[in-house]
């Protein structure tokens, strides 16, 4: 059979749903069986994503799979991939696999949980691979519903409140997205939902472009999130179950940043350029704000959540730089921003899993109630230290090559903004060092009677992500070569 005729993108996208259907039909009595099906499905999805890599794709959107859907208005099922979406697909596949392995301890309504997670995976992959506005929107909305239930059902103490805030916020964002998409459709000539057309030939201009840009901006700023639309994030991240937080931070935030690149940067480039100073101010402020607020947290999970805000500030800064300048600096910054999505996904994903493991053992997330835990949990402690240093941008680990490029590209255009935004680096350093010092260093309380260190299940979930962190850090070119080919193709 001809290898190239297999619709790999469709298979990758819908494999998880097939797994969910299998669980639904079989209704396994034992949770182990259900998880085995779920994990096998996500593993196959990862394999399928790797096959895409092996098959190879061009710098532009390629491996197109297109079927007519609602031909009368030009809505079609269109999937495609390039150097920006592929790393995200790989990240999604990896994170869902590890998150599901990690959550195999959840016994309550495991079947439904697995189905939801698998549905969420399909929706996320669909967002990254869609080349049709309508299809994108449908997948985008489904992620929202899936995540809502994961938080509301399997979260911690204040899960209802968190889920609700998350939902309302992102729903409002969706409204703006919908309006912006309609505008993109209406102002294209001939009217089309085909994102390739809209990217190749951005036609929207004037006030319409401005409004569309801000509509897209608000939608993605809520998802990403940027200040002041970020307030759903700490609640949702803190209250979600560990695997949910990992997926939320690792994958779902990237829907927003990916959107920033795919839509404002590629479809309304002139408007983005015009308003980029505002975006840069917001991004710089978000980065510092996230770092400062993170520094003030006493709840370790919440602290990690705020570092996401900080990192997303860097990321959007990089994208805004790419919007401003057409020189190589813009490309450098965009390379960095795309890599930052992956780095943040892997690093923050593993941090949430580790914090979850910590909470399972100590029964608390308050840092002041923990001390000297390195003695009883050396593996957990050291992995946390490595992940924390990755998150604070230590070279040799995942975030450094990304952030270095963002700042380097930005420094050419806005040296002062870079001078301010890099203050975030010592701030995140301070907050992680404080956390490590409080939780892992110092003396162990005498009465402490802990359970054992990380078990095999947890290690199977955490170690691949740590390995990914190191690989990206030492050999960033593995992903950057793909990303760079595409940003080069953009001809910024």
């Amino acid at each position, binding site marked *: 059979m001809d290898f190239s005729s297999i619709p790999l993108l469709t298979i990758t996208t819908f494999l998880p749903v097939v797994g969910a259907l299998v669980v639904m039909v079989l209704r396994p009595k034992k949770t182990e069986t259900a998880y085995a099906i779920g994990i096998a499905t996500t593993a196959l999805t990862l394999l399928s994503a790797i096959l895409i890599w092996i098959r190879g794709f061009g710098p532009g959107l390629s491996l197109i799979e297109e079927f007519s859907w609602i031909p009368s208005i030009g809505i079609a099922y269109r999937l495609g991939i390039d150097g920006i979406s592929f790393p995200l697909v790989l990240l999604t596949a990896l994170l869902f696999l590890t998150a599901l392995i990690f959550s195999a301890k959840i016994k309550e309504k495991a079947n439904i949980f697995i189905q939801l997670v698998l549905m969420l995976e399909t929706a996320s992959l669909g967002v990254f691979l869609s080349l049709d506005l309508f299809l994108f929107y449908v997948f985008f*909305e489904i992620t929202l519903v899936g995540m*809502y239930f994961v938080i509301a059902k399997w979260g911690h103490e204040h899960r209802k409140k968190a889920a609700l805030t998350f939902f309302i916020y992102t729903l409002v964002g969706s409204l703006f997205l919908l309006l912006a998409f*309609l505008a993109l459709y209406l102002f294209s000539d001939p009217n089309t939902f085909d994102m390739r057309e809209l990217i190749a030939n951005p036609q929207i201009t004037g006030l319409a472009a401005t409004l569309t840009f801000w509509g897209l901006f608000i939608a993605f700023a809520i998802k990403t999130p940027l200040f002041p639309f970020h307030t759903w994030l700490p609640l949702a991240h803190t209250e979600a179950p560990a695997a949910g937080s990992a997926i939320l931070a690792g994958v779902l935030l990237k829907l927003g940043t990916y959107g920033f690149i795919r839509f404002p940067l590629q479809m309304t480039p002139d408007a983005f350029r015009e308003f980029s100073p505002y975006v840069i101010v917001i991004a710089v402020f978000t980065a510092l704000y996230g770092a400062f607020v993170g520094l003030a947290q006493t709840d370790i999970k919440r602290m990690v959540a705020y570092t996401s805000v900080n990192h997303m500030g860097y990321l959007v800064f990089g994208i805004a730089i790419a919007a401003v300048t057409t020189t190589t600096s813009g490309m*450098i910054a965009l390379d960095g921003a795309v890599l930052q999505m992956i780095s943040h996904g892997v690093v923050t994903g593993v941090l949430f899993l580790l914090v979850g493991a910590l909470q399972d053992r100590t029964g608390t997330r308050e840092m002041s109630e923990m001390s000297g835990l390195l003695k009883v949990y050396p593996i957990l402690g050291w992995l946390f230290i490595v992940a924390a240093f990755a998150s604070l941008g*230590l070279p040799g680990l995942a975030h450094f090559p990304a952030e270095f490029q963002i*700042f380097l590209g930005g420094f050419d255009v806005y040296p002062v903004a870079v001078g301010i935004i890099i203050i975030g680096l010592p701030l995140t350093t301070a907050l992680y060092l404080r956390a490590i010092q409080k939780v892992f260093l110092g003396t162990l309380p005498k009465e402490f009677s802990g359970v054992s260190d990380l078990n095999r299940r947890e290690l199977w979930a955490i170690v691949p992500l740590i390995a990914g962190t190191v690989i990206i850090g030492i050999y960033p070119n593995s992903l950057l070569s793909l990303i760079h080919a595409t940003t080069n193709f953009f001809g910024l």
Partner: protein
Amino acid sequence: MIALLLTILGPLAATVWITATRKQIGYAALTGSLASLAGSFFLFLYMIEGKIITATFAGLPNFPFRLEVTELSAVLALVVSVITTFIFIYAIGYMAEEKGKLRFWSGISLFLGAMQLLVLAGDWILFVMAWEIMGFASYLLIGTWYWKKEAGDASTKAFLMNRVADLGLYVGVFVIILTSGSSQIVAEPLQGISMAGALALLLAVMGKSAQVPFQSWLSAAMAGPTPVSALLHSATMVAAGIILLLKAFPLFSPDALIWVGTVGGVTILLTGATAVFSEDIKRMLAASTSSQLGFMVLAVGAGYPAAAIAHLIAHAFMKSSLFLGAGIFQHETGSTRYKDLGGAGKKLIVTFSGFAVAGLALAGIPPLIGFWSKDAILAAGLQADPAAWYFPAALIGAFFTAIYMGRAFGILWNGKARPDETPQRSLPWMHTGLLTLAAATAVGGLFLDPLVEEAGFSIPKGTLAMISGLVAAASGLPIGWFAPAPAFKKRIWMFFRDNYPVAGGYNRVVVQPMLALAKGFNAIETSLLQAVFVIGTAFLAIARWLSEGIDRATAYVIDSIGAFNLNIARMSSFTDDKGIVEGIAGLVDSVQRLGHYGRKMQSGLVHRELAWSVYGMVFAFIIILLTYL
């Protein structure tokens, strides 16, 4: 190429081996450092033969990673691996009965690997990576005994302070890359960098090399094991700052160099005074390190990198010996404070002789190594442009050096030794390390000149410099020897001793405002969260009220329709037409059932309503699109 990889990867492989197998960890680390030694030795030979070795790897797009063996880097790599190897030999003895071996040996091997990477880096991005990884390794090492509070505090402080200063390195490197369009480190650049870029790099140097006002992390770093201090203070870590200066020297404009020299001069004086008034042997050595590094910074600022290289090499041997000696004293007396160390030198005569040789060398007594390198610095100060400022600073610094070393000798030798309590432990390993390095300081003076020549520089010399240096050493040593024993009670001396706690020091000036700012932002965040939640709740209440209203209205309508229908049905019953009655009753039933179904959808958990609203929205979207046609 193999030698190059061996130099860097040898220690890193040891780190991996140690963390993976946890077997024979001390010897594994020593093997790693010996591999590094062999590698750097071959690199040195190749360099003498004139072979140019470079290696390029995939790095960032447009900026490949590059390793390059220059004359300077070959010499420095050799010095680093020689000193480290002997410190490792010492550490096998020192750590034999200490806790935390695993962390220590894996961390210290990583540290060596990172330092060699830094020395041999041929591009600025790799340099930054090595620089920060070394900082991370120092964090781990200082925190070897993590359960002690001061170890945790010190490692946090060291890394954080360095991280603040490292922002300078980032900015400086951005300036370099954007000015030249390439990340390669070149010996003869086409154009220099701006003042801002140069000052940014200087900031990084000040952090790493513990120059004023960043000197305090270095004395706090004493909380780690002694071999760590010996390594941090000699050929690695602090030396990285000087290596940065040497690599960036060709890019600096003369105006920028004045700033460099000024930082060096101020540090020589201030930290030299701290060392004089210290009451703790390790703190004295730490302050002395800052001061000696100040000499090197000053020499670069004066425009004589050769003098800085000479002193870097000489100081690496001297200071590592001094620390190794101090570590043995500490092991034997259980303390590093002068008041507990009285007479310890008489008891540990071998240790004391090693310590004394290195100390005399540092004070600048000929023909020991320090005499030659200090002479070079003084000559550089004399020949520099603002000699009126550089030379006196260096000379007073040399005088201070002689005083604090003399004082240490006096305290260790005079005074009554405390009775022997602890048995001597693992001394052979420790003495091997100490005495070899001390011997190197004794005879190293002969090799210093040719070594610097090999590195491609020539050391400045001068008779006036030599004589004044000798006078400073000869007058300072006796002053120190006879100076009053410990305990400076006056506030002014304590101010010197405690590293100038200006306005409450680092804690008050940096940490507390930062935390206050964090609290402020957090307050904003909390009120923002509350506001959003209030709005959200209000919105939901309205939505619920509306939906309930609609619900009730619908129910009312349905019920009344039902009632109406029933009435019709009743009326129609008069017509005695059963078929119609049953038909209408069935209709009513189904309408009522529909009403219940609708109500079921609308009531219940909030999230269900929301879920429906999404599906409704998607549906509405489709309708809109379809009608648009």
